[in-house]
């Protein structure tokens, strides 16, 4: 059964078309990440699901029940959708204690005091907030506030949990721990989750499925491995991972392969878009796919080392050949000179 269905959602804010007919489905107990750069419309989409924005067109169904339908003008207000939402800024009410923040949803549902105390206690315990229940927001660290926001959204067992960049306000170290923890908690509660983020690593780590958004359109949809390893559009290929780009012309096509050539180089790669010979094209390859080679071979470039950067766990080399610039990772410092660089044909995607 589907927890959430969004059909052809369109939304205009001011003069900008933020969403241009986005559709997706959220399965039970699934974590779906909405991934995209800022301005891609991902937060607007999440807020539309929550009922905080009213789309101009489209339809939204929650567990088979229509909550929004632009065609008939029907809209269930946010407070009656029963969803849980974790805000980027956490939005912990500063005038209430941790306990009262979390209990509020149950109080609105007119639960008995004993039940409220028991359920809030449980969720606080589970999120490791037990000893903090009488504190106010300003007495909590960022990580603790984030957990309160999550507890507040989970306490009344919403069918779908919405998370708007929940980790982006944490510092880098904390964020890495929180990723694993957050996925575990969501999986334990057996709820489905719609997770908005601009951080590809976060999306890859937490989500079961990823929806890549750009300029209000879905670019690609699929499992994390699929999105990373088999991007179908140039945007997705570029947006994910760390990449090298080759701007050139398609000079030869042979089945699914094509030859991309620049001024003083040419390489074979996989053709990923409709191109004719002679057309301008862009080759994209992940930095980690490039290798230094000891000797000359097929699909290799002879390039000059320009500079070497030390990044801690690895070295980054910058090579050039005419206008072409390429980054490459390695394990030790390289002396100056010219090197052979091997470009695996399967990993160079031509768009």
């Amino acid at each position: 059964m589907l927890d959430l269905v969004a059909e052809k959602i369109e939304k205009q804010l001011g003069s900008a078309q933020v969403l241009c007919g986005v559709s997706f489905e959220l399965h039970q107990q699934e974590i779906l990440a909405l991934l995209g750069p800022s301005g891609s419309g991902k937060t607007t989409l999440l807020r539309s699901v929550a009922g905080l924005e009213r789309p101009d067109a489209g339809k939204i169904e929650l567990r088979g029940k229509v909550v929004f339908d632009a065609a008939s003008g029907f809209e269930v207000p946010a407070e009656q959708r029963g969803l849980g939402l974790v805000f980027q800024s956490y939005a912990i009410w500063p005038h209430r204690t941790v306990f009262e923040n979390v209990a509020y949803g149950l109080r609105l549902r007119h639960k008995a005091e004993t039940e409220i105390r028991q359920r809030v206690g449980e969720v606080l315990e589970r999120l490791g907030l037990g000893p903090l229940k009488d504190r106010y927001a300003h007495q909590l660290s960022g990580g603790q506030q984030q957990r309160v926001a999550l507890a507040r959204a989970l306490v009344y067992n919403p069918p779908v949990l919405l998370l708007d960049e929940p980790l982006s306000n944490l510092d880098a170290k904390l964020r890495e721990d929180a990723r694993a923890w957050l996925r575990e908690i969501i999986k334990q509660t057996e709820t489905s989750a719609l997770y908005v983020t601009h951080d590809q690593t976060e999306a890859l780590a937490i989500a079961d499925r990823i929806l890549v958004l750009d300029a209000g359109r879905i670019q690609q949809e699929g499992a994390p491995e699929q999105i990373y390893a088999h991007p179908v559009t140039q945007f997705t290929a570029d947006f994910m991972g760390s990449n090298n780009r080759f701007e050139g012309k398609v000079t030869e096509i042979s089945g699914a392969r094509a030859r991309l050539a620049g001024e003083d180089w040419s390489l074979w790669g996989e053709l990923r878009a409709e191109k004719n010979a002679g057309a301008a094209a862009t080759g994209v390859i992940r930095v980690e796919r490039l290798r230094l080679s000891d000797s000359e071979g097929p699909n290799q470039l002879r390039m000059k080392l320009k500079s070497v950067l030390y990044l801690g766990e690895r070295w980054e080399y910058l090579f050039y050949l005419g206008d072409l610039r390429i980054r490459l990772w390695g394990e030790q410092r390289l002396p100056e000179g010219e090197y052979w660089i091997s470009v695996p044909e399967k990993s160079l995607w031509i768009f």
Partner: protein
Amino acid sequence: MSRILRSLAVIGVALVVLGPLGLILYQSFLNEPFFSASARFSLDAYRYVLADTGFHSAFGTSLVVSLGMTLIAVPLGSLLAFLLVRTDLPGKKWLEPWLLVPIFLSPVVLAFGYVVAVGPVGFFSLWTKALIGRVPWSLYSLFGLVLIAGLTHVPHTFLYVSSALRSLDPAVEEAARVAGAGAWRIAVTVSLPLVTPSILFSAALIFLLGFELFGLPLVLGDPAGLLVLTTYLYKLTNLLGIPSYHLMAVVALSIVALTFPLVYLQRRMLRTAARFAVIGGKGQAFRPLPLGALRWAALALVLIWLMITVLLPLIGVALRSVVSSWGEGIRLSEVLTLDHFRELMGYPNLVRGIVNTFLIGGAGGALSVAFYAVVALAAHRWQSRWVTLVDYLVMVPRALPGLVVGLAFLWVFLFFKPIAFLRTTLFSLWVAYTVVWLAYGLRLISASLFQVKPELEEAARVIGAGPSVVCRDVTLPLIRFGLIGSWLLIFMMFVREYSTGVYLLGPGTEVIGSLIVSLWGTGALDLIAALSVVEVALVAVVLFIALRLGVRLDA
């Protein structure tokens, strides 16, 4: 808030704002007061007023006073703002609340204070005469009036310019310093030019307030035979003996015709200012600019301004209230007395005035804040054309001097028979006060609402709270300190208010401010002095509480 409540709030504002204005307009086209059976539509009133030389000269004087006080208040206020916000002026933390004090003092009390302090037979005049043989100044002159009006309006410029300077990124000044500029040069070439929109805004505001001046010209202009538009309007009441409402309506409209474009101009300027605001600093701690040897000269400037604008008139009022008589050859120690305060208690209307002032400030102020809160919450996060309508409606009372609003409400209560019985109750005064301070009150509440981040309300919506529950459980609790602060500020404004009650003054609606105005006509200086002291004391107590609670005076 539900839609119905929101719409009701908008309709309520429209009614209290447009009703009185409409009545003035209607009255101006009649040849007699509207209650007269023989009243006909006519343009006679316009013909009479526009041909009257008295009106012409009042118009001219108003223009000169407005222009003059703007030229004094704006440069001085901008300079003081720079000194207090950006430099290492000694004792600036302690000085800052004092700079805003004149806003909370009644102009009629200040004017009276100047008369008894530096008037022809004022305390300081006579002491100076005893010392050097003559009084080297003359209070009763156009120049005296303009100077005092200018000095007492410095806080208005200070308010806007200082808040703009506070949000200016200190890095732009530090860059100038590193490049070699001194404090004075930085002020003139960097800081003040960057806050030009705020300076111009305050100039438009002061120019506007100049046309609404009443207490100062009434007390200071009268002996020199100077009339401005408001005092011309006030004299018109007594001049003809019979109610000349049609003439008064025309004069009132002529004031509005001058002020309304200014209010509109200000509104336009505010939008430009918002565009300038991108400079926005991060509010981080920064090192104030060192003034060097100039810091003591700067401190002297601030203190002299404070002396002249606050201490001089207040000392005058305080002294006058405890002397039995004063004139040449009288020694202060021989005439000290508390009789005036005792005498005050002998007049039931004055006692009622004091009680009423307290009631209208306390209970009335609380009710007004509640009304402002309902209107502000109605407009809060409401994407509707109605909100724009409220914006425009609020502009109307800003263009109406208190004197005119009071007059208009007197007519409202005379015109609409079903509510006529309210005219002699404090209710009539409360409505007029609430309308006069509508823009100010709404600004106070909106400033608090602005602090409430939208997510805090949205979080409650998603969890299951409807709009009115969100208002009750989230929005209102979050702005409760702002509401208390607003109440204290409104309390002081209502206590110091004097012109709005002038026409509504009657048995049951006496307040200190309007009593002082009416006593001024009879020359009862002893009673005026005692009443003024009571009023200033009341404001001082509330001001003290507000400062202790950390209420921002510069809202």
